[in-house]
C-alpha cells in the first residue's frame, strides 16, 4: 500500500474542482506527476500542486493507493468522485460531489460534507463524521436510476432529498433528516436514526426505510399493517410496519403487489 498525502496550501478563490483527487488518477504516478494533475477553477485549468503540497507516490493500482488530505477542503469539489478502489481520507470538511458516481473503495470525511455526496453511487463505502447537506445518495437530475449500491454512513444530520430514485445500496443517517427520503425509490435501504420532518417515501415504488425517531408529517399514502421486530444496524427494535406509497404504481411478484416498506420505531 502506498499513501499519498495532500497538504492544502492555498484556499481557492472560487471552488476548485478536484476531480483528479481519486486513487484511480493517482495510481502509478510519482508525487511530482500527481502535483501536475489538472483541476478547474472556473474556466481556468490549474494543477493540484497549485493548491496542495503532495508527498508520497501512488501505488501500482488504485486499490494500492491511499490518499490522505491533511486539512480543510471546504472549497474543493469532486473528492473521490468516480473512484473504483483505494481509500481517500479527508481530515476536515469537503465540498460537493464527494464520492459521486463511485464504484468501489472507501472515503472517510472527518468533517462535514456539502450537497450531492454519493450521487449515482454504485459501490464502495462513504463515511462522514459530520453533517451532510442535501441530495445524499441521490440521482442526478432527470435520471430515474439513482444510487445502485454501496453504503453511505453520515454520523451527523442530513438535509433534504436522501436517496431519491434509489435502486439499491444503503444510506444510514445517524441523526436527523429534513424532508424527502427515498422519493421515487425502487429499491435500497435508508436508515434514519433521528427524527424526520416529513415526506418519507413519497412516490416510492419499492424498498425499505427505517426511522428510529419521529416523523412529524406522515405521508397520507402510507398505511399501518402491523408491528414487527427487526434488526437494524446491529440492534433490534420493535417497529410499526407501514406500506406505501399507495398513490404510486406498484409491480407484482408471485401474484402479490409489492409495496415499499416503512418501519417506524414503535412508541415505547
Amino acid at each position: 500500500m502506498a499513501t499519498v498525502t495532500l497538504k492544502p496550501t492555498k484556499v481557492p478563490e472560487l471552488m476548485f474542482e478536484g476531480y483528479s483527487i481519486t486513487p484511480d488518477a493517482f495510481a502509478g504516478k510519482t508525487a511530482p506527476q500527481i502535483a501536475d494533475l489538472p483541476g478547474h477553477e472556473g474556466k481556468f485549468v490549474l494543477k493540484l500542486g497549485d493548491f496542495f503540497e503532495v508527498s508520497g507516490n501512488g501505488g501500482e493500482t488504485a486499490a494500492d493507493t491511499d490518499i490522505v488530505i491533511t486539512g480543510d477542503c471546504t472549497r474543493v469539489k469532486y473528492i473521490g468522485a468516480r473512484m473504483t478502489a483505494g481509500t481517500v481520507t479527508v481530515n476536515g470538511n469537503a465540498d460537493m460531489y464527494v464520492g459521486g458516481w463511485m464504484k468501489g473503495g472507501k472515503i472517510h470525511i472527518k468533517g462535514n460534507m456539502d450537497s450531492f455526496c454519493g450521487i449515482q453511487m454504485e459501490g464502495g463505502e462513504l463515511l462522514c463524521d459530520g453533517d451532510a447537506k442535501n441530495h445524499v445518495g441521490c440521482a442526478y437530475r432527470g435520471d430515474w436510476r439513482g444510487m445502485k449500491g454501496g453504503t453511505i454512513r453520515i454520523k451527523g444530520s442530513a438535509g433534504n432529498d436522501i436517496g431519491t430514485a434509489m435502486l439499491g445500496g444503503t444510506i444510514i443517517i445517524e441523526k436527523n433528516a429534513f424532508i424527502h427520503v427515498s422519493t421515487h425509490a425502487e429499491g435500497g435501504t435508508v436508515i434514519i436514526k433521528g427524527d424526520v420532518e416529513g415526506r418519507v417515501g413519497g412516490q416510492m415504488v419499492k424498498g425499505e426505510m427505517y426511522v428510529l425517531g419521529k416523523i412529524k408529517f406522515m405521508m397520507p399514502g402510507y398505511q399501518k399493517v402491523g408491528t414487527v421486530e427487526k434488526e437494524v444496524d446491529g440492534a433490534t427494535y420493535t417497529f410499526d410496519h407501514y406500506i406505501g406509497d399507495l398513490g404510486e404504481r406498484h409491480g407484482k411478484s408471485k401474484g402479490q403487489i409489492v409495496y415499499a416498506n416503512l418501519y417506524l420505531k414503535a412508541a415505547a
Partner: protein
Amino acid sequence: MPKLIKGVGCPYCGSSCDDIEVLVSDDETKILEVHNACIIGTNLFHHANDPTRPRLPRRRQPDGSMKEIPYDEAIDYMAKTMLAAKKPLVYGFGSTNCEGMSAVARIAEKSGAVLDNCATICHGPSFLAIFDNGYPSCTLGEAKNRADVVVFWGCNPMHAHPRHTSRYSIFPRGYFTQKGQMQRTVLCVDPRETDTAKLADHHLMLDQGHDYELFDAFRTVLRGFEIPDVVAGIPKETIKKSVEIMKNAKFCMIFFGMGCTHTDGRNHNIDAAISLTRDLNTHTKASIMAMRGHYNIAGPGQVWAWQFGFPYCIDLSKGTHAHMNPGETSSVDLAMRDEVDCFVNVGADAGAHFPIQPVQHLKKHPFITVDPNFNMASEISDLHIPVRIAGVDEPGVVYRMDNVPIQFRAVIKGLPGVPSDEELFNKVYERMCELTKTEPIWLAAKEDRRYPESEAVI
C-alpha cells in the same frame, strides 16, 4: 394621422396576449393609446414614451457616481471583464426576445460563463420535475376549447396573469366549452384567499408548504385507498369530493405556480402534480401547465435547450461540454458560495428579485446590467448598458407559457443609437474575438442574420 397597429403582442406576463391594439403617433415615435391590454401591459407600452429613458451606457466612477460613456467603451469593458473573470454569471432574459438569448449564448460560451435565466428563481423546479417525470401538457388553446375543470394550484392569475382567466382558462367560450364560465368548475388550492380563490367554485385552503402531501392524498384517493381524516389541513371529505370533480371532468386542466415551485420540496411538488395528471388520464383527459411569469421566460428554455441541451443553470466553464445541476450551478447558490467573479444581468432585475445576501456577494465583483430602463440592478451596477425594449421598439420571437412561439412586432421606432440586445451581444462577441485573436463563428437560423464571411471557420 396616428396609426392603429393591430395584432400586437404584449411584453408583460406569460400569457403573451397577441390581440393588443396600439395607436402610435404619425412619426412612429410615441405611443398614444393601448387597447385590450391589462393595466400593467398598458403601462408597459406607455413607459416607452418616458423622455428620461437612458440613451447611453453609464459607467461607475471611482467617486461612486455614474458617468455616461459611448457604446464602444461599454462594449470593450464588458468583453474584457467577462474574459478576465474566472467564472462569469450571465443571468436574466425574462424580458427580451429569443434573438437576444441566442446571441448571448455566443459570448457566454466564449467567456466560459454560467448561463442562467429567471427560471432559476421561478419555474426552474418545474424543469427538474419535467426531467424526472415528463410533461403531459397542451397549449392554452386546448385549455380554452376543452377544459371544463380548471385547477389553479399555488398560483394567482388574477394578479400575476391578469388576462389569463379571460383569454384561456375561466371565462372564454371555446369549441367544446360554449357556455364559458357557466360550464367550467374552478378549483383553487392556495393557503391564502387570493382573488383567484374568491373566483373559484371550490377553494382548498391548505397548510402552507404541504402541497406534496395533498398531491399524494389526491393520488391515493384516486387509486381507491383510504387516507387520514385530515391531510395538509384539508378534511378527507373535501379531498374526495375534489378528486371526484377532477375524475368526472371531460378535460381537467391543472395550472401551477410559485406556490408549488418555491415551497418546501420544490421540484417534488411538481413531480407529484405531474404524476397526478398521469393518474387522472386513466379516468379522463387531463393536462398540466406551468404558469410562466414573463412573456418570454419560456424562450431561454427553448433556445438554450436547443443550443446546449439544458434550459437553465448551464455551466459552460469547461469549454468542451455544458454542465447543469441546480443547487450547484444556479445563480443564487453560485452567488452564496462565492463561486462566480463577474455578474451580468440582462433584461431582469436581480437587484430587486434576488435575496439581499446573494446580491451582496455578487457586488464584490464587476456587476453589469443590460436593461432598457433604470432599475434596482442598474443603480448598483458598475456598468449599465441600455438597449431597445423587445416587443415595443424591437421585434422578435417569444415563447408563450405553453411553449408556443409568437412573432412580436415593434410598434415604434427605437431610440436613435440604442442597439437591440442581439446587436449589443454580437458587438461584444466581435470584441471578444478581437481580444482573443480568434475568428468569430456566425451560425444563425435566420437567413437575414449573420453568416461566416470566411468559409474556413465553418
